[in-house]
C-alpha cells in the first residue's frame, strides 16, 4: 500500500515504456507478416504516426455519454491490467500497484474494459457494434474455460494465486518454468490466449470484411486513439501475464521484451495460417482440446 508520488511516477514511466513497446511490437509483427507474404510492410514507426494523426483529427462526433466514456473504460481496462501486474520480478519500481490484488483481480479486471467498450459501442447504435460485441462475449465465455482450468492448475501447483510468488517459484532456471513443470496447463492457457488476442482464426469480433469492424465501427479520432493506445498496452500486459504465469517471468526489461514478443507472436503466427472461424465453431473449439488439456492439468494434481 504505497501511495507515494515516487511510486506513481515510476508506474507512469513503466506505462510509457509498455505503451511504446506495445506499438513497436505491433509494427514489428506486421512487418514480419508482410515479409512472410513478400511485402516490405509498414514502416516501424507507423503506429506512432497513426496515433498522432488520430489525436489530431479536427472533427469528432459523439453518440452520447456512454459512447464518450466507452474508450475511457476500455483504456482503463488495459491500464488497470498493467497497474495490477508486477512487470519485472523482484523490482519495486516495476511492480506497479500489484499489491492491490492477486491473479484473480487481473483475470476479472480484463472484463472492465470489455464491458465499457461494449456499452460505448452499444450507444453508438450501430448494428455491427452489437453483433461484434455479442460475438466477442460469446467467444470470451469459452475462452475462459481452459484459462480458468489452467489458473487453478497453477494455483494447485504453486499453492498460491499471487503472481510474484508464482514467478518466484519459477526462478530456478529454464526448466523450472511452468511450461516444463506443468505443460498441460501451459497448453490450455496458450490456446486460450489465441482467443484472447483475437487474431485469426478467432478474429470474429472485428471481422473486417464481414461486420466492419465490429464494436469500434463508430469510433474515430481521439476515441480510436484511445482504443489503439489500449491495444498497445493490453497486448504487452496480457503477454506479460502469460509470461509471468508460464514462462518464468522477467527480471529485466530485455527479458520482458523478448518474452512478450514471442508470446504475442505465437498468436499472430497461428493467425497467419488459419482462416476465420464461425462463431459456433470458435465457441465449441475452446471446449474441445484446450478444455481437455486444462482438465488434464488438474487431473495430474488429484
Amino acid at each position, binding site marked *: *500500500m504505497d501511495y507515494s508520488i515516487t511510486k506513481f511516477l515510476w508506474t507512469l514511466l513503466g506505462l510509457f515504456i509498455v505503451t511504446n513497446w506495445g506499438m513497436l511490437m505491433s509494427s514489428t509483427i506486421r512487418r514480419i507478416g508482410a515479409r512472410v507474404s513478400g511485402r516490405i510492410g509498414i514502416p516501424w514507426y507507423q503506429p506512432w504516426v497513426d496515433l498522432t494523426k488520430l489525436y489530431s483529427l479536427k472533427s*469528432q*462526433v459523439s*453518440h*452520447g455519454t456512454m459512447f*464518450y466514456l466507452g474508450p*475511457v*473504460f476500455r483504456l*482503463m481496462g488495459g*491500464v488497470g491490467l498493467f497497474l*495490477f501486474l508486477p512487470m519485472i520480478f523482484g523490482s519495486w519500481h516495476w511492480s506497479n500497484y500489484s*499489491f*492491490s*490484488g*492477486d*491473479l*484473480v*483481480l487481473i483475470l*476479472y*479486471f480484463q*472484463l*472492465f474494459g470489455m*464491458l465499457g467498450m*461494449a*456499452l460505448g459501442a*452499444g*450507444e*453508438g*447504435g*450501430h*448494428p455491427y457494434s*452489437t*453483433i461484434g*460485441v*455479442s460475438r466477442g*462475449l*460469446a467467444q*470470451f*465465455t*469459452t475462452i*475462459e*474455460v481452459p484459462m*480458468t*482450468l489452467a489458473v*487453478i492448475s497453477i*494455483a*494447485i501447483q504453486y*499453492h498460491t*494465486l499471487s503472481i510474484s510468488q508464482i514467478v518466484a517459484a519459477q526462478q530456478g532456471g529454464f526448466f523450472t518454468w511452468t511450461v516444463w513443470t506443468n505443460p498441460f496447463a501451459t497448453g490450455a492457457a496458450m490456446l486460450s490466449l489465441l482467443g484472447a488476442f483475437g487474431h485469426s482464426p478467432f478474429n470474429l469480433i472485428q471481422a473486417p470484411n464481414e461486420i*466492419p469492424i465490429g464494436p469500434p465501427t*463508430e469510433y474515430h*479520432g*481521439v*476515441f480510436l486513439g*484511445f482504443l489503439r493506445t489500449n491495444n498497445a498496452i493490453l497486448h504487452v500486459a496480457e503477454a506479460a501475464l502469460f509470461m509471468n504465469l508460464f514462462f518464468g517471468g522477467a527480471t529485466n526489461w530485455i527479458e520482458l521484451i523478448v518474452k512478450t514478443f514471442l508470446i504475442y507472436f505465437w498468436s499472430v503466427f497461428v493467425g497467419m495460417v488459419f482462416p476465420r472461424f464461425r*462463431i*459456433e*465453431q470458435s*465457441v*465449441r473449439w475452446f471446449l474441445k482440446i484446450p478444455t481437455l488439456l486444462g482438465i488434464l492439468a488438474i487431473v495430474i494434481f488429484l
Partner: protein
Amino acid sequence: MVTPIYIVAVILGLAFLLGILKSSMTRLGSILMIGGLVFITFVSGQWLYEFLVNHRATDIIYTAGFLPPYAINLQMGLNEAILTTMINIVGLLGGIYLLDSLKKTGINSMAIFIVFVMSLNVIVMTRDIFNLFVFLEISSIATGGLILLDNKRKAFQAGMKYIIATGIISNFLLIGIIFSYYFASSLNIDGLIAANLMSIKGGAIALFTIYVSIILELKPFPANGWGIDVYTASNPGISALISAGSATAALFVAYKLMPMGGSFWLPYFAIIGAITFIGSNLMGTRQENPNRLLGYSSIGQVGLILMIIGLSPYLGKDTLLIGFSILISHYAAKAGLFWLSGIIKSKNIQGWSALRKHPYLLFLFGTFIFALIGFPPFPSFFGKWNLIMALAAHGQYAWMTAILAGSFTEAIYLFKWLGYSIKLEVPEDITIKFEWNKYLPIYLMGILLYFMGMYLAPFTEGGVYINFLPLAFVFLLFALDFLPVYVKNTLSIAGIIWYMVRLFPLLEHDLMREIFAGIFLGGAVLTLVAGYAKKGKRPGFYPMALLMFSGLVGLIEANTLLEFFFSWELMTAGSYFLIIRGKRSMPHGYSYMLFSIGGAYAILFGLALAYASGLNISLAALGHITQLTTLAYTLLAVGFMTKTASLGLHIWLPGAHGEAESDVSPMVSAILLKAGVFGLMLLFFYMGTGTPGSEKLLYVLGWVGALTALSGNLGAVFQEDAKRLLAYSSIGQLGYILFSITMMTQLGWLAGFTYTINHFMFKAILFLVIGGIVVKLGTHNMYEMGGMIKKMPYSFVAVLISIIVIGGIPPLSGFAGKWLLYNAVIQKGWYFQGVVVFFAGVIAFLYLFKLIHSVFLGQLKDNHRNMKEISAWILIPSYILIIGIMVFSAFPQWVLKPIGNMLTVYFPKSLYWQGTRAFTSLGYWDGTTTMIVVVTAFTLLLGWLVIASKKVKRIGQFNIVYAAERPYRPETTHVSYNIYAGYKKALGFLVTPVVETFWENVSDMVLDFSGWLRRIYSGNMQNYALHVVLFIVVFYLIALGGL
C-alpha cells in the same frame, strides 16, 4: 343444566308439531325450526362450557329407567359436547342458510331438517349399538328426504344411489349388531368392549361386519361413488351439512367403536384411510365441477381422520387433539366452501372468478383453501404438525409419506381452483347477490377457523412461543384495506421499522440472524418505498406483503422447529398471493405454490426426523439427527432448495418473478429467495461436516449448486423478456450461493454471504428499475425497448452499477465474491465444480450486456420518444442500495471481517486481515486500494480524453455509418432479438428444457392416472352397489381370510 335428552325430545316434538302445521304457515315453521336449532345448540354449548371451564366429569344419561345393557344410554363427555356443538352449529347455520329453499319446499322439509340434525346428535352421544343403527338409518332417510324435497332432477339419481348404498351398508351393520349381540349378549358399547369380541370365536366376524359398515358410511375409496354424487347434485346447503355434520358424526362413531376390536383392526382403519385420502384427492385433480371437487376433498379429509384414528396407538393421548384439529378445519372450511358454492352457482371451478368482485368472500375462500391444506395459523396446521411429529417419534415413516403425499395431491386441485378464482376473467353470466342469511354462516365459519387456530396453538408443544404480533398487524392492514395506497404504505413501513427496532436487540449479536434480518426487513422497507409510485388502492397487496414479511421475520426469530415451520408456511402463503397478483401470473403462482408445498413437506419430514431423534422441539435439534440422518438432511436441503430454485426445482421461478408486479419482483427475488438461503445456512450450521453422510450430501449439493449457476445463467442468455432474464439470473446467483456454502469452509461461507448480500442489493435495484421501465414502456420484450439511456440516465447508472457487481468486475463488491470463491474452491479442492461456476460467471456477461444494451443503448424507438425518467420513488431505494454497494466495495473489511470472525467458531480460520488487505494462504486482495487505484486512473484518463477531444459534436440516432446507406426504422436497426444465435447454435443444447419436460411429464402422468382411475365412477348405481359389496368382500379376505 339441560340434559341432552332434551335434544331428542324437543326436536321430535317440534318435528311432530311442524308435521301438523298447515303447509302455508312457513313463517311460523321456520321460526320453530330455527328456535329448535338454537335450543339444541344452546344445550350442547352449555355442556361444552361446563366441560371446558368447570372441568366437569363425563355424564351418562340413562333412559327408560334401566341401566344398560337393559336400556339405551347416552353419554355426554367433552368429546361429545364438542362434536354435538359442532354439529348443532353447522345445523343452525345451515338452517339459516337454507331458510329460503326450505320455505320453498315446505314445512315438511323443515321437520326433516331438524330431525336430521338431531339424529346426528344422537349418533354422537349414544352408547348403544342398535340405537346407533337406528339413528344412522334416520339420518340417511332424512338425507334422502332432504335431497328428494329439493326437487332437482339430477339430485334424484344421486339420492337413489345414496339410499341403495346406505341401505346395503346399514343391513350389513345390522348383521354385525346381531352377531355381536349373539356372541357377547350385549348391545351396549361399553359392554361390548368389556366382552372383548376378538377373543370370542366368531366375534371377529361380528366386529368385521360392524367395522366395515361404519367405514363404508365414511365413504372409503373406491366404494364411494354414491357419496360423491350426493355432494355433486344436492343443494349445497345440504352437502355442507353432510360434509361437515354427517361425516363428523360418522367419524366419531368409528372412534367410539374402535376400542371394541382392540388393536387388530387399527392398521386396517389406517390403510383404508390412507387409500381414501390419497385416492380421492388424486381423482380430484381432474375435476372441474366445484361441488364434486368438494366432495372428493371431503372424502379425502375424512379418510385422513380415519387414518388418524387408525394410527392412534402411535399418537397416544394426542389422537383426539390431532383428530380434532384436522376435523375442525375440514368442518369449517368444507361447510364454508359448500355454502360459497351455493352462492356462486357455477358449473365449473373457472366460474369462481366471480369472487374477484367480492374481495371479502374471496378472502374467505382463500382462508378455507389454506385451512384445508394445513397452512398456519389454522388448526389443521397444528394437527398435521403434531401428527407428523408423533408418527416420526414412532418411526412410522411410511404413514408420514402417505399423509404428505395425500396432502400434496389435495393442494394440486385446491390451488388450481384458488388461482382460477383470483386470476380468471370475471364471468358475465354469474352474479352474486347479497343475502344476509347466506353470507353470515360463511363469515362465521371463517372467523371460527382463525379463532380455533389461535386457540389450538398453545396445545402443541412449543406452540406457546409463536409470535402472533406480526399476524395481528397483517389483520390490521387487511381491515384498513379501503385506505389509499400511500397511507397503507406509510403504515407498513412504519410498522416494519418499528419491528426492526424492536427485533435487533433481541437478536443478541447473532450476526447471521442480524444480516438476514437486515435483508428481510431493510429490503422490505426499501421495496415498499417504491410502492409510493403506485396509485389507487392496491387492494390486498399490503396484507399479503406484510404476511410474507412476518413469515420471514418469524424465520429469524424462530427458536423452535414449530416456529420455524410456522413462519415458513406463512411466508409461502404471503408470497403466493404476491406472486399471483401479476397480470399473467396464474400458472406461475400455481407452480410456485406446488413446489413450495412439496418443499415444505420435505422440510416437515426432515424436521419431524430431527424432532424424533431427541424429542426436542428446539431448533438445535437439527444438529442431532439420529433417525435416518442422511435422508433427513437431504429432505431439508431439498425443501430449502425449492425456495432457492436450485436446478430441478427451478421451473417455477422465471415465470413467477418475471410476471410479478414491478415492486413485487424485487420482494420475491431479492428478499424471498434469501429465506431459502437462510434455511440452508441454518441447516448446514447444524449439520456440520461430521455427521454421517453429510460429506456426500454436501458434495452432491455442491454440484447441484454449480450446475444451477450454469443453467440459470445460460437460461437467462436466451431470454427476450427483461424480467424473465433477471429471474433466470436469480437462479444462477442462488446457484453460486448454494455452491459456496456447501463447501463448508470459512472462505466458502464468506463467499456465500458476500453473494447473498450482493444479490440482495443488485437484484433489488435491477428488478425495481427494470420493473419500473417495463411498466412505463408497456412491454416486457427487450427488443421493443432501446435507447433509454437518453431518457432515463439515472436508471441507466443504477443498472450499470448493478451489472458491474453481478459480473464481479473489480473494483465493485461483486469481485469480493469471486475472489473469495476462487480461494475457497482451490482450498477445498472442488476444482471442476469451480470451473463450472466460473464459466457460469462469464456467461453472466452475455445476458448482462443484452439487458443493458437492449434496454438502454442501441436505437430509441419512436413510441418511446416522450419517455421521462422512472418515478423517483423507485430510484430512491435503488440509490440507497447503490450507496450500500459502494460502501461494501470500498470497505469490504467492514462487512467481511465480522462475518469471518463469526465463522471461525464453526470453521478453521482461513481469511486474515491486515488493515484493508485480506489474504488467505493462496492470495491477497485489497478492496480499498483497488478502488483508489481504479478511481484515480479512471479520472486521469477521463481528464485526458476531455482535453484531447476538444469539441465533440452530438449527433442524431441515425447518424451512423450504415455501409453508405441509411437506416429507416429504429426497430430494424436495433440489434437485440436473438443476438446470441451463434451461441445458441454452439451451446444451445445445454438449455434443452429437460427439467421442464420432466415435470410436465410427471404432471401429465398424474393427471392421466387420475383420469383413468376415476372411470370407476361410471355413474351406474348398480356398479356403486357392487363396489360396496366388493369392498366388503375384499376387506374380509384381507383382514380375516388370510389373504
